[in-house]
């Protein structure tokens, strides 16, 4: 019991320490929002990105992000991309990047952590998990296709 409490406290502290920028919005066109916890705000160029942020675009929106390991991720219109986990050690280049494309389109270029350890970057979709060994790729999740006859 005591052990659990200590662990919980340690996790809470880790959570606070993690609230640093892991990337930046470099491109933002049309309707682009960043959801952080319960708040949602329009994404502006230069805005910092944190682990567990969710990027949402409207029908005219697209956005491009850079991350501290030099990974690049962009999304097209009508997309939802969540950053589930991110860590990167600038000295050892060890790290992990897990994101979920819930719908829409994504393009990405992997960075230093994947060079250091293949599949350190993973993208989840409703039906799959993609491990990235490098370097450039695109992913689409098309909800409407399921409704077409």
């Amino acid at each position, binding site marked *: 019991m005591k052990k659990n409490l200590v662990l919980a406290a340690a996790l809470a502290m880790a959570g606070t320490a993690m609230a640093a920028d892991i990337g930046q919005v*470099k491109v933002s066109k049309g309707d682009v929002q960043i959801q952080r916890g319960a708040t949602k705000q329009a994404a502006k160029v230069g805005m910092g990105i944190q682990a567990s942020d969710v990027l949402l675009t409207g029908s005219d929106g697209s956005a491009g992000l*850079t991350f501290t390991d*030099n990974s690049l991720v962009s999304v097209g219109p009508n997309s939802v991309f969540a950053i589930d986990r991110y860590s990167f050690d600038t000295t050892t280049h060890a790290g992990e990047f897990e994101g979920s494309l819930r719908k829409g389109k994504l393009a990405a*270029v992997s960075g230093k952590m994947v060079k250091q350890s293949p599949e350190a970057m993973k993208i989840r*979709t409703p039906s799959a998990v993609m491990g990235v060994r490098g370097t*450039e790729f695109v992913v*689409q999740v*098309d909800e409407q296709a399921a409704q077409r006859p």
Partner: protein
Amino acid sequence: MKHLAVLALAALLAACASGPRKQVPAELFVVVPAKDGHIGTIVVETAGQKRVINTAFGAERIQPDGGVVQSTMTRDQVHAIFADAVDALPGRPASFTLYFLEGKDELTADSRVELEKVFAELKKRPLPDIMVIGHTDTVGGLDYNDKLSKARADRLRDMLVELGIPGQRIQAAGRGKRELLVPTEDNVSEARNRRVEINVR
């Protein structure tokens, strides 16, 4: 009564979800060749099966019925679907090197010309993060070279600011003679070591 209706609805939904006609969003994964021609590798795992894709425009589709189809697409097909997303990708991280006159924080004539090209590349990025790192050759002591390398980095930073890049986007640091491009003995004049690296993201 209300609860019964909710239960019945839930049962109905569960039946639909577990039936053979369950529809999933269509998904598409494609490996895109890099500008330098490099072709990467992705591993797509679905329903416990891993498939490797490692060819130019090699693609895997998950169909609405859950079926998986592998194919090779064309550049045009990929462009037609993904142009919006690809156009929003930020510029690739890049690195440039400029050289300095011996013992000075002045660029060589060649590098002064080269600076124009570097600036043109930096200017393409709407919000560049620039790191300027100065270096020296091994002529002179550690302190002298630490100062000289920092002076070179600061000088280059000033030149970029003069050309119109906001100063707060640029960090400057000196590494003295600690990171030689061409390894030499101490007190060796070597033009290729008298340099500044410019890294941009």
